[in-house]
């Protein structure tokens, strides 16, 4: 028995069996192929927009409002200004509520409301943007009886809150406890420690989180459909209907006029370049910090 096994072993060549080797190589190839398939669409989209969109980009695109339906010329000043104004409103809502929520979760971990607020915030982050649009429609548009930039900005702000809460909480937890204790040992009340010691130490991280949140909602068109509604004229008054880049892209892409479709491609190019730059900047900021 013993000798048999021994003699058998000596006949098997050293190292892995060819079957296992082949399987290993096959899976490596499959994994690499899968990765290429994952990354390819991004490159394809970017190259496509660059090739198709750059032709419609001109100075007019940034300085004029859309030409009447079916006519050539015109630009997207209404959408660019609308996006900026609504992002500003969204930023205020998102930062005020989001940072407060993050401070609450990180600095009052033993409060009895803490688990509920963390759970609700996490759950809110998964609510589809279109549903948030419906809620803000009921809340603002039905009450004021008209579409407005305020409503659009609020919808985007609500979408920002969970993202800002999460990043603020994580960043605040990175501030060492010793720093807090040092502040308290100097006789500072807790609020002074949080406002003058902890928050300044975490500022760059919070700014990164806010930038990422802004970049994320800057591309949302679904919640603006029934809140900001869109506007072909230049409008800087947030109590009136407003356009936004993603909204204008949606309208342009589904339009049957070539000029609108081309401008939608140019608008998409502008939008994703802005979003990529914002997330690159945010990423660079965190890397520096580390």
């Amino acid at each position, binding site marked *: 028995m013993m000798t048999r096994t021994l003699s058998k072993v000596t006949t098997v060549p050293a190292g892995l069996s060819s079957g296992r080797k082949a*399987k290993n190589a096959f899976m490596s190839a499959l994994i690499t192929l899968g990765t290429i398939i994952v990354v390819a669409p991004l490159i394809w989209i970017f190259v496509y927009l660059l090739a198709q969109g750059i032709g419609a980009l001109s100075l007019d695109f940034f300085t004029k409002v859309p030409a009447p339906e079916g006519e050539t010329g015109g630009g997207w000043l209404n959408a660019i200004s609308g996006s900026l104004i609504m992002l500003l409103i969204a930023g205020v809502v998102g930062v005020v509520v989001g940072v407060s929520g993050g401070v609450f979760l990180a600095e*009052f971990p033993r409060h009895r409301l803490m688990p509920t607020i963390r759970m609700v915030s996490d759950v809110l982050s998964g609510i589809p943007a279109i549903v948030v649009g419906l809620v803000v429609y009921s809340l603002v548009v039905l009450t004021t009886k008209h579409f407005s930039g305020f409503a659009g900005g609020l919808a985007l702000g609500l979408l920002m809150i969970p993202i800002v809460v999460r990043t603020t909480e994580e960043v605040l937890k990175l501030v060492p406890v010793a720093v807090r204790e040092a502040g308290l040992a100097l006789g500072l009340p807790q609020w002074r420690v949080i406002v003058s010691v902890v928050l300044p130490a975490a500022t760059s991280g919070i700014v990164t989180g806010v930038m990422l949140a802004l970049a994320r909602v800057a591309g949302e068109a679904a919640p603006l459909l029934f809140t900001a509604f869109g506007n072909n004229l230049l409008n800087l008054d947030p109590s009136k209907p407003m356009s936004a880049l993603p909204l204008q892209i949606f309208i342009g892409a589904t339009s049957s006029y070539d000029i609108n479709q081309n401008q939608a491609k140019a608008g998409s190019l502008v939008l994703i370049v802005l979003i990529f730059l914002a997330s690159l900047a945010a990423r660079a900021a965190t890397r520096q910090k580390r």
Partner: protein
Amino acid sequence: MTTRLTLPKRPLPNSKGDGVFRTVIIGLSLVIIAVFLLSVYLLGRDSIPALQQFGLSFLSQTVWNPVTKQFGAASLIAGTLITSFVALLISVPLALASAIFVAEYAPKWLANPVSYLVELLAAVPSVVYGLWALFALKPLIQKFQLFLYTSNPDLVTQCSTLRGEGRNSVACFFMPEAPVGLGLMLAIIILTIMILPYTASVARDVIRLVPSDQREAMYALGATKWEVIRGAILPFARAGITGGIILALGRALGETLAVAMVIGNVPEFASNIWGSTATMASMIALQFGDAQEALHRSSIITLGLLLFFVSVIVNYSARLIIARLTPQGIK
């Protein structure tokens, strides 16, 4: 001099400031809960007319017709579930492959750019995906459909007679009715691409958290790289990956404009993989603006309420699974 020293100018700890600060912070944090409750209240209130009219048959009725005032969401629910689950089925292996590649195979100079590209994929707005699908993918699909048409002329006639009689067959299930490009297939493709980064980035993070002694122990037993991934890494990262998959499912269920732009938006069951259908989210996006009539409006808001609850449940269970199944020590 001495009196000035004994009288501190600075407020003592536990001063009024703490109370005020605490109240402000808690007050603002309660806004988060208020938003949640307000959403439930407003969506619930506005969907009462439709729920009173249709009751639970709203979920099972298949006719969605604003003209005859019949609203049943069955075909929309089916559209949402089919697109989401098929997209998930295709995207999970791809996402896992890219996560394993980044965490286990790629050298650092390659891993960082690749994982950054995957993250950018999540940053591309929905409308841009929709636009790309409409202008770049649709013509390709049309070409392919035309190819199916011209290469199987007999099947085309056979399918059109079958469809005329309201029947279907396996072969016809893969045969387009007309080379229009838009429809279920394109929606699934675009949805697959859109949810890839969610699973991929969560999976990558948990795979990186797998302790290296797990890997080393398996290598020491003479395992190949694939066997290590299969036997040590994937089981260990199981919880996180499952959570990531469920989060991606949540995204897919609520994805709106990209799908609305390419699915055709017809509130009927698709009779083949190319057919036009609609999802709950695409229906909200494309009909709510034009819905003048109260019952129509209310029915659409009921779809919103349904989506709201589904996404709450999906997200909550994802967090629960991540928290429960995560092995101690890598939390």
